[in-house]
């Protein structure tokens, strides 16, 4: 979500003062799961090196929720206030019931968004989505070159993506492109923006890779240098300043290169709720990496209890859990201490300050990663692509050295 509330306009004040106002603004203490992300399957025909999905996703490809279970989940979440629905994965189009889910979402009043690689989108299916009331489709694109697209996704999907982009446009959908940015495409920023214009994109999200799941395993190979990131942002800003373009550009700042952490998920259990392929309910995509946490599952827990009362959703809500230096920090309300998963993955302590913060005693881990981005030997390591075979290997304990070398664990 990009905006939380309308600014205080005169008309609001005037009408509110007459006590006829029926609008209220959300407050930090009245949390609502406005955004429901349905990670409907972890199966995927692409094998992207930067995927944020759990590296052990192979555990969850045989126990997916049924259509009925998804529909019940949509109903329950809607009652709790969910409005924006993301249908994601994996590749959601690998399920043949997306049409039914779209129809139900429309009936319930969701603003629904299919987040897809485009693989599996046909004229027949997009027609059904349009008729069913799907509001928009977010298409991932990888690069302007066939070579990099096919390399980073480990598939031959470049031509197909261009065809799908045209199909989305032809059906009157807003064109929302998502491009994950990493070392292999960051030098093509200008060309990527030109490609998006040529495809008629209304929105483009330039999502600098965040290092979770597969992208953390491949961090040394994916991470660009600080200079590359700065140049990319400069190009994005210059394009935005061009008044001939109506395309909206979201440049997602890579947190490693910032001095303060991101307010991850806009706060734990504040506005986001994620339901995974097997029904686990999470406050953020990668929460299952955290130790000693039990996340409720829609198959056996009431969703209202999960959101409001479950220990998992209350664990890091607000700031009572904080340790120093966060606890006494004057800026703690700005970022709520950053990302719990990142803290755990890099420091071994989920309650530590996000190591991105320059006030964190672990900031040297991030500085080292930035320094390592200049090291050609590290970049030359083979990429571990996201696929079932590698996921099975990770479940069995392989590739651990890729992660342990990053953090301060003994």
């Amino acid at each position: 979500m990009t905006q939380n509330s309308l600014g205080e306009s005169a008309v609001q004040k005037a009408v509110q003062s007459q006590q006829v106002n029926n609008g209220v603004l959300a407050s930090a203490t009245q949390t609502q799961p406005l955004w429901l992300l349905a990670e409907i399957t972890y199966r995927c025909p692409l094998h992207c090196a930067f995927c944020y999905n759990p590296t052990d996703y192979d555990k969850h490809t045989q126990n997916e929720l049924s259509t009925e279970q998804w529909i019940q989940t949509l109903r329950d979440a809607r009652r709790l206030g969910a409005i924006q629905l993301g249908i994601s994965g994996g590749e959601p189009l690998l399920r043949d019931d997306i049409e039914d889910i779209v129809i139900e979402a429309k009936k319930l009043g969701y603003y629904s968004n299919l987040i897809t690689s485009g693989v599996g989108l046909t004229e027949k299916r997009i027609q059904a989505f349009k008729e069913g009331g799907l509001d928009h489709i977010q298409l991932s694109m990888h690069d302007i070159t066939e070579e990099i697209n096919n390399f980073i996704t480990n598939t031959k999907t470049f031509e197909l993506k261009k065809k799908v982009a045209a199909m989305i446009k032809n059906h009157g959908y807003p064109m929302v492109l998502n491009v994950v940015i990493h070392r292999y495409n960051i030098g093509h920023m200008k060309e990527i923006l030109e490609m998006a214009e040529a495809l008629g994109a209304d929105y483009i999200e330039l999502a600098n890779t965040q290092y979770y799941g597969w992208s953390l395993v491949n961090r040394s190979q994916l991470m660009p240098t600080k200079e590359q990131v700065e140049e990319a942002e400069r190009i994005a800003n210059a394009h935005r300043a061009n008044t001939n373009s109506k395309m909206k550009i979201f440049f997602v700042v890579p947190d490693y290169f910032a001095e303060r952490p991101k307010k991850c998920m806009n706060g734990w259990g504040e506005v986001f709720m994620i339901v995974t392929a097997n029904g686990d309910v999470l406050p953020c995509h990668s929460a299952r990496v955290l130790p000693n946490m039990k996340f409720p599952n829609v198959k056996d827990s009431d969703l209202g209890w999960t959101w409001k009362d479950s220990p998992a959703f209350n664990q890091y809500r607000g700031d009572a859990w904080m340790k120093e230096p966060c606890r006494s920090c004057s800026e703690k309300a700005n970022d709520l201490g950053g990302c719990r998963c990142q803290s755990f993955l890099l420091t071994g302590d989920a309650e530590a300050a996000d190591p991105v913060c320059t006030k964190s005693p672990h900031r040297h881990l991030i500085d080292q990663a930035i320094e390592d981005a200049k090291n050609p030997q590290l970049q030359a390591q083979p990429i571990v692509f996201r696929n079932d075979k590698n996921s099975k290997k990770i479940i069995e304990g392989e590739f651990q050295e890729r992660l342990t070398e990053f953090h301060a664990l003994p």
Partner: protein
Amino acid sequence: MSDNIQHSDVYAIAPHHRFQWEEAQQCYVILFPEGMVKLNGGAGEVLKRVNGSASVAEIIADIKATFPDVPNIEADIMGMFELALGKQWLVKR
């Protein structure tokens, strides 16, 4: 009176945007790709009358009739139209 918005203008909610009442939030919202804005009561009162056929003048008259005791309400309504147009929530018919 705004330079851009005329009383005779007719507006509609922009394509790919949806305006609706949210029971759980007890407010109107405007929804669009990747985002949503919760509207306070006044903004909702204006946007709920934007339907692709009512003119700005008709909307002003209707709101004035509903809230007869609010002073300077016309300027507030015009301000809301300007804001909504600036945010591209509305398109001119």
